[in-house]
Protein backbone atom coordinates (compact mmCIF):
# COMPACT_ATOMS: atom_id res chain seq x y z
CA UNK A 1 0.00 0.00 0.00
CA UNK A 2 2.72 2.33 1.07
CA UNK A 3 4.93 1.34 -1.83
CA UNK A 4 2.25 2.10 -4.37
CA UNK A 5 1.62 5.51 -2.92
CA UNK A 6 5.32 6.27 -3.10
CA UNK A 7 5.38 5.39 -6.75
CA UNK A 8 2.34 7.48 -7.53
CA UNK A 9 3.39 10.51 -5.54
CA UNK A 10 6.35 11.57 -7.66
CA UNK A 11 4.09 11.39 -10.70
CA UNK A 12 1.52 13.61 -9.04
CA UNK A 13 4.31 15.99 -8.20
CA UNK A 14 5.60 15.84 -11.76
CA UNK A 15 2.15 16.67 -13.02
CA UNK A 16 2.05 19.65 -10.73
CA UNK A 17 5.48 20.82 -11.74
CA UNK A 18 4.67 20.69 -15.44
CA UNK A 19 2.74 23.80 -14.56
CA UNK A 20 5.89 25.26 -13.03
CA UNK A 21 6.35 28.94 -13.63
CA UNK A 22 3.19 29.24 -15.66
CA UNK A 23 3.50 32.97 -15.21
CA UNK A 24 -0.23 33.25 -14.85
CA UNK A 25 -0.41 33.78 -11.15
CA UNK A 26 0.02 37.32 -10.10
CA UNK A 27 0.52 38.81 -6.67
CA UNK A 28 -0.15 42.49 -6.26
CA UNK A 29 0.59 44.55 -3.19
CA UNK A 30 -1.08 47.94 -3.29
CA UNK A 31 0.01 50.91 -1.22
CA UNK A 32 1.52 48.97 1.69
CA UNK A 33 2.21 51.43 4.45
CA UNK A 34 3.47 50.65 7.96
CA UNK A 35 3.63 53.13 10.79
CA UNK A 36 5.29 52.80 14.16
CA UNK A 37 3.69 55.42 16.34
CA UNK A 38 3.95 58.55 14.23
CA UNK A 39 6.93 57.35 12.29
CA UNK A 40 6.49 55.98 8.77
CA UNK A 41 8.52 52.78 8.36
CA UNK A 42 7.49 52.04 4.79
CA UNK A 43 5.36 54.30 2.65
CA UNK A 44 2.96 53.25 -0.14
CA UNK A 45 4.87 50.28 -1.48
CA UNK A 46 3.45 48.72 -4.66
CA UNK A 47 4.60 45.32 -5.77
CA UNK A 48 3.65 43.28 -8.79
CA UNK A 49 5.00 39.77 -8.79
CA UNK A 50 4.48 36.81 -11.10
CA UNK A 51 4.97 33.16 -10.29
CA UNK A 52 8.31 31.75 -11.29
CA UNK A 53 10.06 35.05 -10.66
CA UNK A 54 12.63 35.94 -8.02
CA UNK A 55 12.31 39.43 -6.65
CA UNK A 56 15.18 40.62 -4.47
CA UNK A 57 14.79 43.39 -1.93
CA UNK A 58 17.93 45.38 -1.24
CA UNK A 59 18.53 48.46 0.86
CA UNK A 60 20.51 49.80 3.80
CA UNK A 61 19.83 48.66 7.37
CA UNK A 62 16.56 50.05 8.64
CA UNK A 63 15.23 50.67 5.14
CA UNK A 64 12.13 48.64 5.98
CA UNK A 65 12.92 45.40 4.15
CA UNK A 66 12.01 43.09 7.03
CA UNK A 67 9.02 45.29 7.80
CA UNK A 68 7.72 44.85 4.26
CA UNK A 69 8.18 41.08 4.53
CA UNK A 70 6.29 41.02 7.82
CA UNK A 71 3.53 43.21 6.41
CA UNK A 72 3.07 40.83 3.49
CA UNK A 73 2.94 37.96 6.00
CA UNK A 74 0.25 39.85 7.90
CA UNK A 75 2.31 39.79 11.07
CA UNK A 76 2.32 43.56 11.56
CA UNK A 77 -0.44 46.06 11.10
CA UNK A 78 -0.35 47.76 7.73
CA UNK A 79 -2.43 49.79 5.36
CA UNK A 80 -3.00 48.71 1.78
CA UNK A 81 -4.00 45.39 0.30
CA UNK A 82 -2.49 42.25 -1.13
CA UNK A 83 -4.24 40.45 -3.97
CA UNK A 84 -3.59 37.13 -5.57
CA UNK A 85 -5.10 36.56 -9.00
CA UNK A 86 -5.14 33.74 -11.46
CA UNK A 87 -4.84 35.53 -14.80
CA UNK A 88 -6.34 32.67 -16.80
CA UNK A 89 -9.78 33.16 -15.38
CA UNK A 90 -9.34 36.37 -13.43
CA UNK A 91 -10.32 34.80 -10.14
CA UNK A 92 -9.00 36.02 -6.85
CA UNK A 93 -7.67 33.20 -4.71
CA UNK A 94 -6.30 32.84 -1.24
CA UNK A 95 -2.59 33.46 -1.18
CA UNK A 96 -0.54 30.88 0.67
CA UNK A 97 2.77 32.20 1.91
CA UNK A 98 5.89 30.31 2.92
CA UNK A 99 8.46 32.00 5.10
CA UNK A 100 12.12 31.31 5.76
CA UNK A 101 13.18 33.12 8.93
CA UNK A 102 16.63 34.53 9.68
CA UNK A 103 17.04 32.54 12.86
CA UNK A 104 15.16 30.23 15.21
CA UNK A 105 14.93 30.19 19.00
CA UNK A 106 16.58 26.98 19.98
CA UNK A 107 18.62 27.03 23.17
CA UNK A 108 21.85 25.09 23.57
CA UNK A 109 21.26 21.37 24.09
CA UNK A 110 17.55 21.58 23.37
CA UNK A 111 16.35 18.00 23.07
CA UNK A 112 14.59 18.26 19.74
CA UNK A 113 15.32 16.29 16.61
CA UNK A 114 14.89 17.67 13.11
CA UNK A 115 11.85 15.41 12.79
CA UNK A 116 10.29 16.92 15.95
CA UNK A 117 10.86 20.43 14.70
CA UNK A 118 9.52 19.73 11.22
CA UNK A 119 6.52 17.73 12.43
CA UNK A 120 5.49 20.53 14.77
CA UNK A 121 4.78 22.72 11.74
CA UNK A 122 3.09 20.27 9.44
CA UNK A 123 1.25 17.79 11.64
CA UNK A 124 -0.94 17.47 14.69
CA UNK A 125 0.31 14.02 15.69
CA UNK A 126 1.73 14.93 19.11
CA UNK A 127 5.49 14.75 18.68
CA UNK A 128 6.09 14.20 22.39
CA UNK A 129 4.05 10.96 22.33
CA UNK A 130 5.19 9.09 19.27
CA UNK A 131 6.91 9.33 15.93
CA UNK A 132 4.32 8.98 13.18
CA UNK A 133 5.63 6.77 10.37
CA UNK A 134 3.60 8.61 7.78
CA UNK A 135 4.83 12.01 8.88
CA UNK A 136 8.39 10.71 9.18
CA UNK A 137 8.25 9.58 5.57
CA UNK A 138 6.78 12.90 4.46
CA UNK A 139 9.42 14.89 6.34
CA UNK A 140 12.12 12.77 4.74
CA UNK A 141 10.74 13.37 1.26
CA UNK A 142 10.53 17.09 1.82
CA UNK A 143 14.06 17.27 3.21
CA UNK A 144 15.23 15.27 0.20
CA UNK A 145 14.25 18.14 -2.12
CA UNK A 146 17.27 19.95 -0.71
CA UNK A 147 19.42 16.83 -0.15
CA UNK A 148 18.92 17.13 3.59
CA UNK A 149 17.18 13.82 4.33
CA UNK A 150 20.14 12.58 6.39
CA UNK A 151 19.52 15.30 8.95
CA UNK A 152 16.16 13.91 10.05
CA UNK A 153 17.34 12.24 13.28
CA UNK A 154 19.96 14.82 14.23
CA UNK A 155 19.37 17.26 17.03
CA UNK A 156 18.19 20.52 15.49
CA UNK A 157 20.46 22.61 17.74
CA UNK A 158 23.54 20.79 16.39
CA UNK A 159 22.93 21.76 12.75
CA UNK A 160 25.34 24.07 10.92
CA UNK A 161 24.04 27.33 9.51
CA UNK A 162 23.71 25.84 6.03
CA UNK A 163 21.97 22.71 7.26
CA UNK A 164 19.52 24.73 9.32
CA UNK A 165 18.82 26.85 6.25
CA UNK A 166 17.95 23.80 4.17
CA UNK A 167 15.70 22.54 6.96
CA UNK A 168 13.86 25.88 7.15
CA UNK A 169 13.55 25.97 3.38
CA UNK A 170 12.01 22.49 3.40
CA UNK A 171 9.51 23.53 6.05
CA UNK A 172 8.60 26.66 4.10
CA UNK A 173 7.79 24.67 0.96
CA UNK A 174 5.68 22.04 2.74
CA UNK A 175 3.20 22.35 1.17
CA UNK A 176 4.36 24.46 -1.80
CA UNK A 177 3.18 28.04 -1.21
CA UNK A 178 2.25 30.58 -3.89
CA UNK A 179 4.74 33.03 -2.50
CA UNK A 180 7.96 32.28 -0.66
CA UNK A 181 9.50 34.98 1.51
CA UNK A 182 13.14 34.74 2.58
CA UNK A 183 14.58 37.25 5.02
CA UNK A 184 18.38 37.51 4.63
CA UNK A 185 18.67 33.78 4.23
CA UNK A 186 22.45 33.57 4.02
CA UNK A 187 23.57 35.65 6.97
CA UNK A 188 26.03 33.56 8.97
CA UNK A 189 26.60 30.92 6.31
CA UNK A 190 29.97 30.15 4.73
CA UNK A 191 30.71 30.44 1.00
CA UNK A 192 30.06 26.80 0.15
CA UNK A 193 26.83 26.92 2.07
CA UNK A 194 25.80 30.01 0.13
CA UNK A 195 26.50 28.43 -3.24
CA UNK A 196 24.43 25.41 -2.28
CA UNK A 197 21.64 27.61 -1.04
CA UNK A 198 21.51 29.59 -4.26
CA UNK A 199 21.43 26.39 -6.28
CA UNK A 200 18.49 25.27 -4.18
CA UNK A 201 16.69 28.53 -4.86
CA UNK A 202 17.29 28.09 -8.57
CA UNK A 203 15.98 24.53 -8.30
CA UNK A 204 12.81 25.74 -6.61
CA UNK A 205 12.33 28.34 -9.28
CA UNK A 206 12.59 25.91 -12.13
CA UNK A 207 10.61 23.06 -10.55
CA UNK A 208 7.72 24.68 -8.77
CA UNK A 209 4.99 27.15 -9.46
CA UNK A 210 5.82 29.82 -6.93
CA UNK A 211 7.07 33.38 -6.65
CA UNK A 212 9.89 34.41 -4.32
CA UNK A 213 10.78 37.59 -2.51
CA UNK A 214 14.27 37.51 -1.03
CA UNK A 215 15.93 40.08 1.20
CA UNK A 216 19.62 39.95 0.36
CA UNK A 217 22.88 41.83 0.63
CA UNK A 218 24.73 39.51 -1.69
CA UNK A 219 25.02 41.40 -4.98
CA UNK A 220 26.66 38.49 -6.78
CA UNK A 221 23.53 36.54 -6.06
CA UNK A 222 21.38 39.46 -7.19
CA UNK A 223 23.23 39.66 -10.53
CA UNK A 224 23.05 35.96 -11.17
CA UNK A 225 19.62 34.91 -9.98
CA UNK A 226 17.29 37.88 -9.56
CA UNK A 227 14.59 38.58 -12.13
CA UNK A 228 13.60 41.82 -10.53
CA UNK A 229 15.41 43.99 -8.00
CA UNK A 230 13.84 46.52 -5.67
CA UNK A 231 15.96 49.11 -3.91
CA UNK A 232 14.02 50.06 -0.82
CA UNK A 233 14.45 53.02 1.48
CA UNK A 234 11.08 53.63 3.10
CA UNK A 235 9.77 53.98 -0.46
CA UNK A 236 10.81 52.14 -3.60
CA UNK A 237 13.82 54.17 -4.69
CA UNK A 238 14.57 52.18 -7.81
CA UNK A 239 13.39 48.94 -9.35
CA UNK A 240 14.08 46.96 -12.47
CA UNK A 241 16.41 44.28 -13.78
CA UNK A 242 19.59 43.63 -11.78
CA UNK A 243 21.70 45.58 -14.34
CA UNK A 244 19.39 48.55 -14.23
CA UNK A 245 19.31 48.78 -10.46
CA UNK A 246 22.93 47.87 -9.68
CA UNK A 247 24.28 50.39 -12.17
CA UNK A 248 21.92 53.17 -11.13
CA UNK A 249 22.93 56.33 -9.33
CA UNK A 250 20.51 55.58 -6.52
CA UNK A 251 22.29 52.29 -5.89
CA UNK A 252 25.66 54.11 -5.79
CA UNK A 253 24.21 56.60 -3.33
CA UNK A 254 23.19 53.87 -0.88
CA UNK A 255 25.94 51.30 -1.28
CA UNK A 256 28.76 53.15 -3.05
Amino acid at each position, binding site marked *: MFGIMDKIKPRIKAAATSEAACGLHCIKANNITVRKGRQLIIDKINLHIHCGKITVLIGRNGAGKSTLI*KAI*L*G*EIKHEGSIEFTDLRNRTVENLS*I*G*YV*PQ*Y*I*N*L*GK*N*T*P*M*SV*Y*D*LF*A*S*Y*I*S*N*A*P*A*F*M*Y*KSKKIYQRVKEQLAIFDAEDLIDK*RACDLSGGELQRL*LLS*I*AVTPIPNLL*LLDEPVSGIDRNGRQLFYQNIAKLKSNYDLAMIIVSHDFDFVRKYADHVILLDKVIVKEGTPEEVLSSEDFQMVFG
Partner: protein
Amino acid sequence: MNTVYKIIESILPFSWTEYNFMKNALLAIIIISPMFGSMGTMIVNNKMAFFSDALGHSALTGVAIGAIFGISDVNLSMLIFAVVFALLLNRIKRKKTVSSDTVISVFASLSMAIGLVVLSRGGNFAKYSALLVGDILSISWDEIGYLLIIFIVSLLFWLFCFNKLNAISINETLAKSKNIRVALLEDLFSVLIAVIVMSSVRWIGILIINALLILPAAASRNMASNVREYHLFSVIISLFSGICGLIISFYAGFAAGPTIVIIAALIFFVTLLLSLILRHN
Protein backbone atom coordinates in the same frame (compact mmCIF):
# COMPACT_ATOMS: atom_id res chain seq x y z
CA MET B 1 -12.37 5.90 47.95
CA ASN B 2 -11.86 2.88 50.16
CA THR B 3 -11.00 0.66 47.23
CA VAL B 4 -8.27 3.06 46.15
CA TYR B 5 -6.90 3.10 49.71
CA LYS B 6 -6.95 -0.70 49.84
CA ILE B 7 -5.11 -0.93 46.54
CA ILE B 8 -2.42 1.43 47.80
CA GLU B 9 -2.09 -0.54 51.04
CA SER B 10 -1.77 -3.85 49.23
CA ILE B 11 0.79 -2.56 46.73
CA LEU B 12 2.76 -0.61 49.31
CA PRO B 13 2.51 -2.44 52.63
CA PHE B 14 4.63 0.03 54.59
CA SER B 15 4.07 1.92 57.78
CA TRP B 16 3.59 5.26 55.99
CA THR B 17 0.67 3.99 53.93
CA GLU B 18 -1.26 3.16 57.09
CA TYR B 19 -2.27 6.81 57.34
CA ASN B 20 -5.00 8.14 55.11
CA PHE B 21 -3.37 11.56 54.84
CA MET B 22 -0.26 9.88 53.42
CA LYS B 23 -2.33 7.96 50.92
CA ASN B 24 -4.02 11.18 49.85
CA ALA B 25 -0.68 12.91 49.56
CA LEU B 26 0.67 10.05 47.47
CA LEU B 27 -2.29 10.25 45.10
CA ALA B 28 -1.87 14.01 44.79
CA ILE B 29 1.83 13.61 43.98
CA ILE B 30 1.05 10.96 41.36
CA ILE B 31 -1.34 13.40 39.67
CA ILE B 32 0.65 16.61 40.05
CA SER B 33 4.14 15.50 39.15
CA PRO B 34 3.58 14.17 35.61
CA MET B 35 1.71 17.38 34.83
CA PHE B 36 4.55 19.51 36.11
CA GLY B 37 7.10 17.29 34.42
CA SER B 38 5.60 17.71 30.97
CA MET B 39 4.60 21.38 31.16
CA GLY B 40 8.07 22.10 32.52
CA THR B 41 9.71 20.97 29.28
CA MET B 42 7.96 23.72 27.33
CA ILE B 43 8.50 26.31 30.06
CA VAL B 44 12.24 25.62 30.02
CA ASN B 45 12.37 25.67 26.19
CA ASN B 46 10.54 29.00 26.10
CA LYS B 47 12.64 30.47 28.91
CA MET B 48 9.44 31.13 30.86
CA ALA B 49 10.84 30.14 34.26
CA PHE B 50 10.54 33.69 35.49
CA PHE B 51 6.96 33.90 34.26
CA SER B 52 5.84 30.76 36.08
CA ASP B 53 7.67 31.90 39.20
CA ALA B 54 5.78 35.21 39.12
CA LEU B 55 2.53 33.30 38.70
CA GLY B 56 3.29 31.23 41.77
CA HIS B 57 3.95 34.35 43.81
CA SER B 58 0.69 35.88 42.64
CA ALA B 59 -1.09 33.23 44.73
CA LEU B 60 -0.58 35.51 47.73
CA THR B 61 -2.53 38.30 46.07
CA GLY B 62 -5.24 35.85 45.11
CA VAL B 63 -5.63 34.84 48.73
CA ALA B 64 -5.58 38.49 49.79
CA ILE B 65 -8.31 39.38 47.31
CA GLY B 66 -10.33 36.50 48.64
CA ALA B 67 -9.85 37.81 52.17
CA ILE B 68 -10.91 41.35 51.23
CA PHE B 69 -14.06 40.34 49.36
CA GLY B 70 -14.88 37.60 51.79
CA ILE B 71 -14.76 34.85 49.19
CA SER B 72 -14.88 31.68 51.21
CA ASP B 73 -13.24 29.47 48.60
CA VAL B 74 -9.63 30.65 48.49
CA ASN B 75 -8.88 28.35 45.56
CA LEU B 76 -11.31 30.28 43.42
CA SER B 77 -9.96 33.77 44.13
CA MET B 78 -6.39 32.51 43.64
CA LEU B 79 -7.27 30.90 40.34
CA ILE B 80 -9.15 33.90 38.96
CA PHE B 81 -6.41 36.29 39.92
CA ALA B 82 -3.68 34.11 38.43
CA VAL B 83 -5.52 33.72 35.13
CA VAL B 84 -6.09 37.48 34.85
CA PHE B 85 -2.47 38.08 35.82
CA ALA B 86 -1.17 35.66 33.19
CA LEU B 87 -3.29 37.17 30.41
CA LEU B 88 -2.29 40.68 31.43
CA LEU B 89 1.40 39.78 31.33
CA ASN B 90 0.97 38.31 27.85
CA ARG B 91 -0.75 41.44 26.62
CA ILE B 92 2.01 43.69 27.91
CA LYS B 93 4.70 41.39 26.60
CA ARG B 94 3.26 41.66 23.09
CA LYS B 95 3.53 45.44 23.10
CA LYS B 96 7.29 44.91 23.15
CA THR B 97 7.97 48.33 24.65
CA VAL B 98 9.69 47.03 27.78
CA SER B 99 11.82 43.91 28.14
CA SER B 100 9.61 41.07 29.27
CA ASP B 101 11.57 40.08 32.37
CA THR B 102 11.38 43.67 33.56
CA VAL B 103 7.61 43.68 33.09
CA ILE B 104 7.21 40.36 34.84
CA SER B 105 9.40 41.48 37.70
CA VAL B 106 7.50 44.73 38.19
CA PHE B 107 4.14 43.00 38.26
CA ALA B 108 5.30 40.06 40.34
CA SER B 109 6.78 42.31 43.03
CA LEU B 110 3.73 44.54 43.03
CA SER B 111 1.25 41.69 43.32
CA MET B 112 3.27 39.99 46.03
CA ALA B 113 3.60 43.22 48.00
CA ILE B 114 -0.14 43.83 47.79
CA GLY B 115 -0.75 40.29 48.99
CA LEU B 116 1.64 40.68 51.91
CA VAL B 117 0.24 44.07 52.91
CA VAL B 118 -3.32 42.80 52.97
CA LEU B 119 -2.58 39.50 54.66
CA SER B 120 -0.31 40.98 57.33
CA ARG B 121 -2.90 43.52 58.53
CA GLY B 122 -2.93 43.43 62.32
CA GLY B 123 0.08 41.13 62.41
CA ASN B 124 -1.85 38.09 61.30
CA PHE B 125 0.44 36.73 58.63
CA ALA B 126 1.40 33.60 60.59
CA LYS B 127 -2.03 32.24 59.68
CA TYR B 128 -1.00 32.20 56.02
CA SER B 129 2.58 31.03 56.33
CA ALA B 130 1.55 27.48 55.44
CA LEU B 131 1.01 28.86 51.96
CA LEU B 132 4.71 29.57 51.62
CA VAL B 133 5.99 26.05 52.18
CA GLY B 134 2.79 24.16 51.40
CA ASP B 135 1.19 21.27 53.20
CA ILE B 136 0.48 18.29 51.01
CA LEU B 137 -0.54 16.17 53.99
CA SER B 138 -3.69 18.25 54.43
CA ILE B 139 -5.12 17.56 50.98
CA SER B 140 -8.64 16.16 51.01
CA TRP B 141 -10.30 13.55 48.84
CA ASP B 142 -12.38 16.18 46.99
CA GLU B 143 -9.35 18.25 46.25
CA ILE B 144 -7.65 15.22 44.73
CA GLY B 145 -10.71 14.99 42.49
CA TYR B 146 -10.19 18.57 41.28
CA LEU B 147 -6.55 17.80 40.58
CA LEU B 148 -7.58 14.79 38.54
CA ILE B 149 -9.92 16.92 36.42
CA ILE B 150 -7.16 19.46 35.82
CA PHE B 151 -4.80 16.62 34.97
CA ILE B 152 -7.18 15.31 32.31
CA VAL B 153 -7.76 18.77 30.84
CA SER B 154 -4.06 19.50 30.60
CA LEU B 155 -3.37 16.11 29.07
CA LEU B 156 -5.96 16.78 26.38
CA PHE B 157 -4.56 20.24 25.78
CA TRP B 158 -1.09 18.81 25.47
CA LEU B 159 -2.19 16.12 23.01
CA PHE B 160 -3.93 18.61 20.74
CA CYS B 161 -1.73 21.68 21.08
CA PHE B 162 1.81 20.52 21.83
CA ASN B 163 2.98 20.61 18.21
CA LYS B 164 1.60 24.09 17.66
CA LEU B 165 3.11 25.41 20.88
CA ASN B 166 6.42 23.89 19.92
CA ALA B 167 6.19 25.52 16.49
CA ILE B 168 5.49 28.90 18.11
CA SER B 169 8.37 28.47 20.51
CA ILE B 170 10.82 27.85 17.63
CA ASN B 171 9.74 30.82 15.54
CA GLU B 172 6.55 32.81 15.90
CA THR B 173 6.51 34.25 12.41
CA LEU B 174 7.12 30.86 10.86
CA ALA B 175 4.28 29.46 12.96
CA LYS B 176 2.02 32.27 11.77
CA SER B 177 2.88 31.55 8.17
CA LYS B 178 1.60 28.02 8.79
CA ASN B 179 -1.72 29.46 10.00
CA ILE B 180 -1.12 28.70 13.66
CA ARG B 181 -3.05 31.05 15.94
CA VAL B 182 -0.09 32.29 17.92
CA ALA B 183 -1.73 34.71 20.37
CA LEU B 184 -4.59 32.37 21.20
CA LEU B 185 -2.32 29.41 21.88
CA GLU B 186 0.10 31.48 23.93
CA ASP B 187 -2.80 32.70 26.04
CA LEU B 188 -4.20 29.21 26.48
CA PHE B 189 -0.81 27.90 27.53
CA SER B 190 -0.35 30.71 30.05
CA VAL B 191 -3.81 30.10 31.47
CA LEU B 192 -3.03 26.42 31.75
CA ILE B 193 0.19 27.16 33.64
CA ALA B 194 -1.78 29.48 35.92
CA VAL B 195 -4.35 26.75 36.55
CA ILE B 196 -1.90 23.98 37.32
CA VAL B 197 0.27 26.22 39.50
CA MET B 198 -2.72 27.51 41.47
CA SER B 199 -4.23 24.06 41.87
CA SER B 200 -1.02 22.80 43.43
CA VAL B 201 0.45 25.79 45.19
CA ARG B 202 -1.31 25.12 48.50
CA TRP B 203 0.22 21.65 48.61
CA ILE B 204 3.68 22.43 47.34
CA GLY B 205 4.22 25.97 48.59
CA ILE B 206 4.68 29.35 46.91
CA LEU B 207 8.41 29.44 47.57
CA ILE B 208 9.23 26.19 45.83
CA ILE B 209 6.49 25.41 43.34
CA ASN B 210 8.49 26.80 40.45
CA ALA B 211 11.36 24.46 41.23
CA LEU B 212 9.02 21.56 40.63
CA LEU B 213 8.20 22.90 37.19
CA ILE B 214 11.77 23.64 36.18
CA LEU B 215 14.04 21.04 37.79
CA PRO B 216 12.72 17.80 36.24
CA ALA B 217 12.75 19.34 32.76
CA ALA B 218 16.20 20.84 33.31
CA ALA B 219 17.55 17.46 34.46
CA SER B 220 15.90 15.71 31.52
CA ARG B 221 17.56 18.11 29.08
CA ASN B 222 20.93 16.80 30.22
CA MET B 223 20.10 13.37 28.86
CA ALA B 224 17.42 13.58 26.19
CA SER B 225 18.00 13.98 22.46
CA ASN B 226 14.44 14.39 21.18
CA VAL B 227 11.12 15.62 22.55
CA ARG B 228 9.85 12.14 23.40
CA GLU B 229 12.84 11.39 25.62
CA TYR B 230 12.66 14.91 26.99
CA HIS B 231 9.08 14.37 28.18
CA LEU B 232 9.55 10.81 29.35
CA PHE B 233 12.64 11.51 31.46
CA SER B 234 11.12 14.68 32.85
CA VAL B 235 7.94 12.89 33.95
CA ILE B 236 9.90 9.99 35.47
CA ILE B 237 12.24 12.33 37.36
CA SER B 238 9.29 14.37 38.55
CA LEU B 239 7.37 11.31 39.78
CA PHE B 240 10.45 9.77 41.35
CA SER B 241 11.44 12.87 43.29
CA GLY B 242 7.82 13.49 44.30
CA ILE B 243 7.27 10.02 45.74
CA CYS B 244 10.73 9.72 47.32
CA GLY B 245 10.41 13.20 48.80
CA LEU B 246 7.07 12.34 50.34
CA ILE B 247 8.35 9.11 51.92
CA ILE B 248 11.56 10.67 53.21
CA SER B 249 9.67 13.63 54.64
CA PHE B 250 7.39 11.22 56.50
CA TYR B 251 10.18 9.31 58.21
CA ALA B 252 12.47 12.29 58.77
CA GLY B 253 9.77 14.75 59.77
CA PHE B 254 10.63 17.35 57.09
CA ALA B 255 8.15 19.41 55.09
CA ALA B 256 7.32 17.42 51.95
CA GLY B 257 7.61 20.19 49.33
CA PRO B 258 11.21 21.22 50.03
CA THR B 259 12.30 17.58 50.36
CA ILE B 260 10.92 16.88 46.88
CA VAL B 261 12.75 19.89 45.48
CA ILE B 262 16.06 18.83 47.05
CA ILE B 263 15.79 15.38 45.49
CA ALA B 264 14.94 16.84 42.08
CA ALA B 265 17.90 19.20 42.39
CA LEU B 266 20.22 16.31 43.28
CA ILE B 267 19.02 14.45 40.18
CA PHE B 268 19.72 17.56 38.13
CA PHE B 269 23.31 17.71 39.35
CA VAL B 270 23.88 13.99 38.80
CA THR B 271 22.57 14.17 35.23
CA LEU B 272 24.60 17.30 34.57
CA LEU B 273 27.75 15.57 35.76
CA LEU B 274 26.99 12.48 33.70
CA SER B 275 26.36 14.50 30.57
CA LEU B 276 29.61 16.41 31.04
CA ILE B 277 31.56 13.18 31.46
CA LEU B 278 29.87 11.52 28.49
CA ARG B 279 30.46 14.51 26.24
CA HIS B 280 34.12 14.56 27.24
CA ASN B 281 34.65 11.02 26.10
